[in-house]
């Protein structure tokens, strides 16, 4: 049960949000090869550590935004708007 800091509404409980999977994906154009297209469709990152993902404040403002979440500890390192660049997070490897 995460606590997520919606950039518009403030900190709310996870139950108010919907998860939208990995963020910062670039949608290939029609002339992309089958390999590039299937990579976009099916291959998602599943890191042990920081994951950049999108969430939507479903029972709130209805806005999508990005979250940098540690998949091991569930710590949320950053919340930032859709379209913004990945934040530079100096987080040490959880295994080290």
């Amino acid at each position: 049960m995460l606590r997520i800091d919606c950039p518009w509404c403030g900190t709310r409980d996870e139950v108010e949000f919907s998860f939208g999977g990995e963020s910062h994906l670039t949608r290939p154009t029609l002339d992309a090869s089958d390999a590039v297209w299937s990579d976009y469709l099916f291959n998602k990152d599943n890191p042990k550590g920081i994951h950049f993902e999108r969430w939507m404040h479903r029972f709130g403002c209805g806005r999508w935004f990005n979250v940098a979440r540690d998949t091991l500890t569930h710590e949320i390192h950053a919340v930032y708007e859709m379209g913004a660049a990945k934040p530079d997070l100096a987080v040490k490897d959880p295994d080290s």
Partner: protein
Amino acid sequence: MTPSPTNRLTSGGRIDRTQPLSFRFNGKPLQGYSGDTIASALLANGIGTVNRSFKYHRPRGVMSAGVEETNALLTVSGGNGDIPVVRTTVRALVDGQLIKSPSGFPNVNFDLGRVLDFTHRFWAAGFYNKLFKWPSWRWYEGTVRRMAGLGKLPDGEDGNKYFHHNVHCDVLIVGAGPAGLAAALGCANSGARVLLVEQDHELGGSLLADGAQINAIDSDTWLSRTTSTLEDAANVTVMTSSTVSGYYDHNVLTITDRSTTGVVRFWKVRAKEVLLATGAFEQPLVFENNDRPGVMLANAAMTYVLRYAVKPAHVMVVATNNDTAYRVAFALHDNGVRVPAIVDSRENIAEEVSKEAGERGIPIMAGSVVLDTVGTKALTRVSVGRLSNDGRSTVDPTSVIACQGLAMSGGFNPNCSLYSQAGGSLRYDAQLACFVPDEEKACRQRVTVAGAANGKFSLADALTEGARAGSTVTGEAGFACSPAEVATSALGSYHLKAMRITPTGDTSRQWVDFAHDVTVADIELAVRENFVSVEHLKRYTTVGMAVDQGKTSNLNALTLLAELTDRSVEEVGTTTFRPPFMPVPMGAIAGPQHGDFYAPARLLPAHDWHVDHGAVFENYGPWKRPEYYATNGRDRETAIREEVLALRRSAGLFDGSPLGKIEITGPDAGEFLNRIYVNNALTLKPGRVRYGIMLSENGIVIDDGVFARLADDCYLVSTTTANADHITAWLEQWHQCEWPDLNLVISTVTSQWAVATLAGPNARTLLQEIESDIDFSVQALPHMTLTTGTFLGMHARVQRVSFSGEMSFEISVPALDGRQVMETLMNSGGDRITLIGIEALTILRTEKGYLHVGGDTDGMTNALDIGFGGIVARKKTDFVGKRSLLRGGDQRKDRRQFVGVEPLNDNEELESGAHFITSQREGRRSQGVVTSACFSPTLNRVIGLGLLEGGFARKGETVTVFDDGRTFDVRITDPTFYDPGGEKMNA
């Protein structure tokens, strides 16, 4: 007059002798007192055997005085029926309660099932995988399941009430034993919001049966003073009879609160800091027949004597590997229980305990272990042997001691379930021979462990550590707080010898897990068969998997596994703790969300009007919609058939209000929809309507419906009823995440509009009789157009779209006017209009060959499979899913394609779900499915729709259908059975 309890002390304890309670055990009337648990009342009445064991049906008595109970899990009357698997060691006795032993045939004292015990060699671990191979497991299953049950679930409605609550706090203290209380005392008046949660109905934990001195006063007085201090502190909330059962991310914990009779409250707590003072579980000793009634944990014996004023037996031997059991022996002795011996596996006993034993005249048998016990329904004697010098065997002679009970202590194991759930690591402490929180490894949650849960088993250490931890976590939460002053003179020595398992004897009679009847021999067998990983051992032998989740068996099983595989316990490791720590009733998780409150029902704007017209409602997603109208007492079949025919003959009125309606407004609305729809949205002129489909990015059809252009910068998108919310969210995601530069707004208007659909050859004539400024003529309002105007004085949108295949007008008015439109049309039309339910509409659209996304398509159906190849080829620009349609696999000619089917024999019953199968010669495999089927009243024969491999090229072909054992032939046709030219629809 019920007989007076035989094992009850005349004074002492925390029971109220002025409030006697009557109850029955297996029909026998007995008496207890307010303050008793069911188990303490049974013991007070000298009841030895309370249940039979799970597998061998051995007689079993009360084993503990807490949640770790493995034996006294009984059926108790309450609510609207008998509740099985009640932990009677923690459940308060209630006047008039009926207690039953769930197993034992014909009864618990004489159980024919005991034959399993006498033939136990056949039933070792995994027996069902080996013994019941012939003829098949199914042959035995019924009998095994009947014998293995833990009781029967009540049949009736659950009599309890369930509620959900949420709470935030700065400090959550779990457990109100010495450590938890010392911590809470320090936090009182610190200003922090403190929640102290205790699963017992009284605060105190081990102090409820202790008798030590704290701060120079006796512990009972200290406890009552502390309790009132905490209750008076405005910032401290005390919850009793409440069990913290789950620890989730970001410090969310769940509590099952049973403090009100007949009510279970399920709390979700969000805590800044959590302090776990969850105590420890005493571990049993393992020797032959260590499961007989009368054998119990030592601290349980102390609890029964001091808290409940009950002698567990009149003569009790104490067996131990540490100092704590001496206090138990003294308490038993001081309250009139004769203790003939303390059997201690240690050679050297500390003087501080041996001296006191000497003063009471209790003999100590040092360097000795219990070998075996005798007695069927109650203990009669135990045999004791002296350990050899290397401790791996015993030396003669064996002594036999007559007794009625045995109190055993194998030392303590911290209760680390919640800490482990929080992600905390445990380490094996060889000196304490148990698992303790590993302070070296950081836990991802804001959690601290104190007291016995942290391996501080003496009262003095638990109090000190609790007080210190309380002040630390309060400080972490941002509040100033100094540790409470707590000191005790109580005996604090432990001196554990890491030995719980008697090295000799028949291992198939030495129990490790009482609840699941797992013996040392079972563990040996598992190791012989190479189940040497702790996870494999657990699953193969089921050790620790019973309702108690191994609270008294896991540690002994791990120790044995380590010994048998020549590894250290550290190397063997432990299994993972998962929520819940204690079972949570399903009702508590559901809370009030059941029955009518399970999900809010959505009603049509004209719901009551439909009720008055005989509508029979069915749930379609959240909506209650008329399935058919039982007018004039018609049955379902007749009603549906007559509705279909009436619409085709004259006119039908259908309430289409739940249809999803989304408005897309803005200069880029057209561009946006052009990227969403397979169809071209930009070429659509204002006032025109187009049928479109939407695909997932993988090319799969996810929704269909019409979209209309209301103005240059405004579109109205219709979605299927069930998908309305989902499609809105999906459109938002594309707009916000992929194309935020497009200037538009998406708004759902589904419930703003009521929709009355009038369809049939007389539809236009009927509308023209109504007061309106709208020109309904075919020239002004042809099929697939939209207009707005005034209808009955209301603002209305009228759309020419058809799902039935007849001339059709969809009249949308503000939702509140929905009833008036339906009513006026019906009154004006009289016999010429018939109300149409969903079932009739389903037949009408099947006749017309219109597909239903999700019914006639599945998760593999792409745009090309339903005949959209031409439209896809003509549209040059990108849209969601287009790239996927370019893949070779998406364009194969043998994909499952949308077709019509009709049985060769008109009377054949065709059902959706039936498979098209290949011939015997080709190996009888499925080549598709029938997705819709019905008897068409219009055509007077059976028709259907389906998905068939290479279906487009197979029209006219005869294919065999397999349906639930039947096979018959059908002809593949075009999906459109009715009015293929569309003259009626375009009229």
